[in-house]
């Protein structure tokens, strides 16, 4: 029993470190390796993938923390990620509960929905700041969505590997 608790604790700590690195990478590493000028929703991608494997209560807290960290570290003027990440993580988890054999598809669908939301948000902010909405959608939102879809594959595989090593008995 004690061993199981230690094992669970280690898994949660490692998952936290994983999301911490993901959030930092999004605002320090990815601005250097943009695709068509856009930064992917890397932290969102990692959070959604984690929520497909992790315990509900744990991922809820981690999703809020990851979103908060991302917005603060990225110097964002609008702190919306904690709410967005929590809702998407819960949605991904609910989708996996409904279709347990389609875990990767559920994660991809929710991640794309979230990334689309996030990229439209970027376009709205840009259009408020003077850019044409269509122009922003084409040159910023679309590359953001595409890049997020590209990074999803390695992120999902890495997350799966993490939970293969640290099995979550409750999922």
């Amino acid at each position, binding site marked *: 029993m004690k061993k199981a608790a230690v094992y669970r604790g280690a898994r949660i700590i490692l998952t936290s470190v994983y999301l911490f690195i993901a959030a930092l*990478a999004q605002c*320090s590493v990815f601005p*250097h390796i943009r695709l068509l000028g856009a930064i992917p929703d890397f932290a969102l991608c990692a959070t959604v993938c984690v929520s497909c494997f992790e315990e*509900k209560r744990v991922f809820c807290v981690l999703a*809020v923390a990851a*979103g908060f960290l991302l917005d603060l570290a990225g*110097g*964002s*003027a609008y702190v919306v990620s904690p709410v967005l990440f929590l809702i998407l993580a819960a949605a991904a988890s609910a989708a996996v509960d409904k279709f347990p054999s389609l875990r990767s598809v559920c994660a991809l669908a929710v991640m794309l929905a979230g990334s689309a939301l996030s990229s439209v948000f*970027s376009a709205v902010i840009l259009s408020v700041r003077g850019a044409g909405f269509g122009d922003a959608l084409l040159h910023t939102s679309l590359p953001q969505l595409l890049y997020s879809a590209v990074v999803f594959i390695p992120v999902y595989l890495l997350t799966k590997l993490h939970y293969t090593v640290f099995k979550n008995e409750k999922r």
Partner: protein
Amino acid sequence: MKFFKSKFFVITALIAVIIAVTFTVMSALGYSSYIKSGLNTVLTPFRLLADKTGEALEGYAAYITEFDRLKAENKELKNRIEQMQGEVQAAAAIREENEQFRKYLEIKAEHLDYTFENAAVIGRESNNYMTVFTLSKGKNYGIEAGMPIIAENGGLIGGVTDAGGTWASASSLTDPSSAVGAYVERSLAAGIVSGDYTLGRSGLCKMNYISDGADIQVGDRILTSGIGSVYPRGLVIGTVTEVVTDENTRSKYAVVRPLAEQTGFSSVMVLTSYEKYVEN
């Protein structure tokens, strides 16, 4: 679906909403919270490490994504080498230009009232709608919000927007929210240089509010006017690459290429003190 209605989820969602609203409002009002400051202080070493990793990856990514372009460019450059051997005299002009740039490096010697603080860029924006970056130094080194940031070649990059003990965040000239009072060095025509979404993608910015009939040409140097006392007078913003006249309103604007490269720089100088410009 049951989980969405659980007490735990509702409380967590409530906390997330409170966090989001509180920090967004505080940010909009220009307040920097202790939590934000503390978190950024703790994050500074991690971000420094992550940014160095990003810089290393940037080189590899460019090698992969731009290989064909670089190959073609290399071929073209080889052809041009022969051509350029006959243009040795042009080198003298380049040497002269280099001397000019060196003068910018000695900007401190020219402006005795300027005090600089060097800082490394340790983080950049996490989203696609802002051009912000984080510096490795903050209030502990005398860096405060509102201070101008210049590149090593003397060109204005932007300004500090927020500062904590060991960090500072800044926005660049190409950010659509930026605006700097400016004038044309040659003719003294005044205007406002601000970021523009479309031009910003090419690293350019816009000079607006140029009076009708003002003398402005391609190649003119644009300097800060010092009006409003946010930036000192005489900092180099960039060079005019295009002057556009709106056919309907007859109003003019100029496209400006900033002297300071707006992306890719890894260290900057923060102008921590200078004499405020007083308009006569």
